[in-house]
Structure formats: structure tokens, C-alpha cells
């Protein structure tokens, strides 16, 4: 998760103090790894330097937390284009699993056993994520869902590959 873009996005919502940004970041995006204050202010400093935010008037009062950060036109444009741009769809043909299977077949090793172990590992992780879902809040649930659907896609690939192993073995042997 891109910290600068996330903080910028939070500022697009409303001008905020560094403290509020950290709190909202930790609630929704940090996944158990709170964002250090140092990183919050360093990031805000860079965003300000690049003209994506400006520091508002220092407010009177006690305590260190008196600056409010405001997004600029340039910052808002950047948030907009980041949100609209799709994430690169990875060409999954070069995954580790694919390489393992083909190599295993080339070396005459038991690819199916490796895939079975991989399936068990995937299922165990899916069990853990399901447990998180069953006991967690909505944010945990949504993140667990994301993991579950990806693992499920891998499992479909594993099942289909197991069904294709004989054909693949023949092809690999011919080269």
C-alpha cells in the first residue's frame, strides 16, 4: 500500500492534522503495523515540497498538533488519476509455481506431489483467513476475502495443472 498516495487521499477528503491522518491510516490501511509518526511527517514534508499539499495556518493552542494540512489542485489530480488507473494485471505465466512445475517435469521429479503439498499449504492459509473473517471486523473480513479469492484462483490453477500434467510431461520430454 502506497503511504504517500493514501495520506494524499485522506487529505482529499478534508484538511487534517497529522495525528488524524495517522489514526485513519492505522484504522483502515496499516494491517497491524501502525504508521510511525516520523513517517507521517516525513511523507507530509515531501508532499508539501512537491506542491501536492500545503501546510495551513498554525492554530493557536497547546501541544504539538497545531498544523492542518490541505491538498492542492495538483495533489487532487494525482489522487484522481491514481484511483482511475487500473492496477497492472500481472501476466501470471512466470509465477514461481509454473516454473517449479515445468522444472520438476524436466528433471523427472514428482510434480504432482509438489502440487499436492502446495494445495495443502494454500488450504491451510485459507483456513486461517476464514478464521480471521469469522472473528474479525469488517476491514479484516474484506482483506481476508481478497486473500481467499486469490488463493482460490491459485488452487483452480493447481487443479487444472494436475489434470494437464501428462500432456505437459509429454511436451517437456519432446524438447
Amino acid at each position: 500500500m502506497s503511504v504517500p498516495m493514501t495520506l494524499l487521499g485522506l487529505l482529499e477528503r478534508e484538511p487534517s492534522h497529522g495525528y488524524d491522518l495517522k489514526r485513519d491510516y492505522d484504522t483502515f490501511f496499516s494491517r497491524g503495523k501502525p504508521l510511525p509518526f516520523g513517517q507521517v511527517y516525513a511523507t507530509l514534508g515531501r508532499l508539501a515540497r512537491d506542491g501536492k499539499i500545503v501546510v495551513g495556518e498554525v492554530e493557536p493552542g497547546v501541544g504539538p498538533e497545531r498544523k492542518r494540512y490541505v491538498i492542492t489542485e495538483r495533489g487532487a489530480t494525482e489522487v484522481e488519476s491514481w484511483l482511475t488507473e487500473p492496477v497492472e494485471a500481472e501476466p501470471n505465466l512466470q509465477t514461481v509455481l509454473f516454473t517449479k512445475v515445468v522444472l520438476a517435469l524436466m528433471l523427472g521429479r514428482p510434480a504432482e506431489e509438489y502440487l499436492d503439498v502446495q494445495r495443502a499449504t494454500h488450504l491451510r492459509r485459507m483456513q486461517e483467513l476464514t478464521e480471521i473473517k469469522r472473528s474479525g471486523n469488517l476491514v479484516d473480513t474484506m482483506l481476508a476475502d481478497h486473500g481467499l479469492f486469490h488463493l482460490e484462483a491459485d488452487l483452480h490453477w493447481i487443479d487444472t495443472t494436475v489434470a494437464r500434467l501428462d500432456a505437459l510431461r509429454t511436451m517437456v520430454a519432446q524438447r
Partner: protein
Amino acid sequence: MTAIEARDVALSFGETPALRGATVSVASGEIVAVMGPSGSGKSTLLHCLAGILVPDSGEIHFEGRRIDTLSETERSALRRDRFGFVFQFGQLVPELTAEENVALPLLLSGVKRGAALAQARPWFDRLGLTGLGRRRSGELSGGQAQRVALARGLVARPGVLFADEPTGALDSLTGEQVMELLVTSAREQGTTVVLVTHDARVAAYADRQVIVRDGKVNALVHS
């Protein structure tokens, strides 16, 4: 303690071997997912465990008692009194209301109508079906009907619940709600569950997964 177990079970439909030496054992209170490719023998295994089909060879044991050698009448009494069932398409009785459907296993084992319905009714609130007890199955959505079927499977507090693709006809979120209810209710009642599914996200609700391939049961091998 073992609740239900298949030992080296083989069964053919004519020339087609569906099971060829299937062995699996499910502990009391355990939820086991049976996965595997289409046609591998999952449903056949479930039907053998539940005493619906009789294997050509091998043995089925329930709570330490061999059940595949029982007569059809004894097996049908066992199914009625100790087992619950949920299938892919709820298979509710269309002539009955939803609450009569839930009460059905109790009615069939001789509980009086009033008492059976009184036991059926609380399930509607806990399954998020408040107010739908009087509807007939044709007036329920697929997800609602499936929850009614789940209640029917569990209402008599069976020793084992057999579920064959219970979420197969549902979208992900509805399927998830059904699984959540299945797991929570089975745990509360201490019901053992044999859950056939090809869906890994459904299988992930189970304590353990096994895979049926070519009529045999493989445990998952972890690294």
C-alpha cells in the same frame, strides 16, 4: 472418539467403479470437508457413509457399530434418528410451509406436531429468516430455502450432518452466511459434519480437508 468411518470401501455402478478402496474416519464433533474433482466419488462416499448406499465391499462404522450390514429398515431408521442431510438444492417439500419443513425430521420420528413446530420456530430468527416460517418453498429465494434446509438438517440434533454441496447454488456472500450458520450451529450442538464441496473457500470452514481422487481418499500432505 470416532463418529463415522469408511474402511476400504468399494462400490461400482454397473461397469463404473465409483469408489475403489476409500478409507476415511471422522472424529466426533469434527467438521471434515471432502473435496476432489467432479466424478471422483465424493457423493458416492457420502451416500455410503450415510447408509443410503451399501458398498460392494468394505465397512462403514458409526459410533463403533458396523452399519453397512444392517437391513434397509434399520438403516433408514438410523438415517431418520441420528443423521441430518443438506443437499445442493434444499429439496424442501413444496406442499409444506417452511416451518413444517424444518419440523419434518421431528414429525417423522414421532414428535407431536405442536412440539415439533415449537422446536422448529426458533431456527427462523437465528437464521435471519424472521417472519418467513409460514411461506412455502416456492416463495423463498434460493439462499433462504437453503437456510431452511440447513435448519431441517440440524433440528433433530443429529449425530452426523451430511452436506453435499450445500452452497453450490448460492452466490459467494449467501454461501458464506450458510457456512457460518452451519459451522456455528454444528459446534453448538456438537454435531459431526461431513461436507462435500469442490469449493475451496467453503472447505476452508472445515477443521480438516480430504481429497477424493479416482475413488480413493487422500489426506492432505503438508510440507
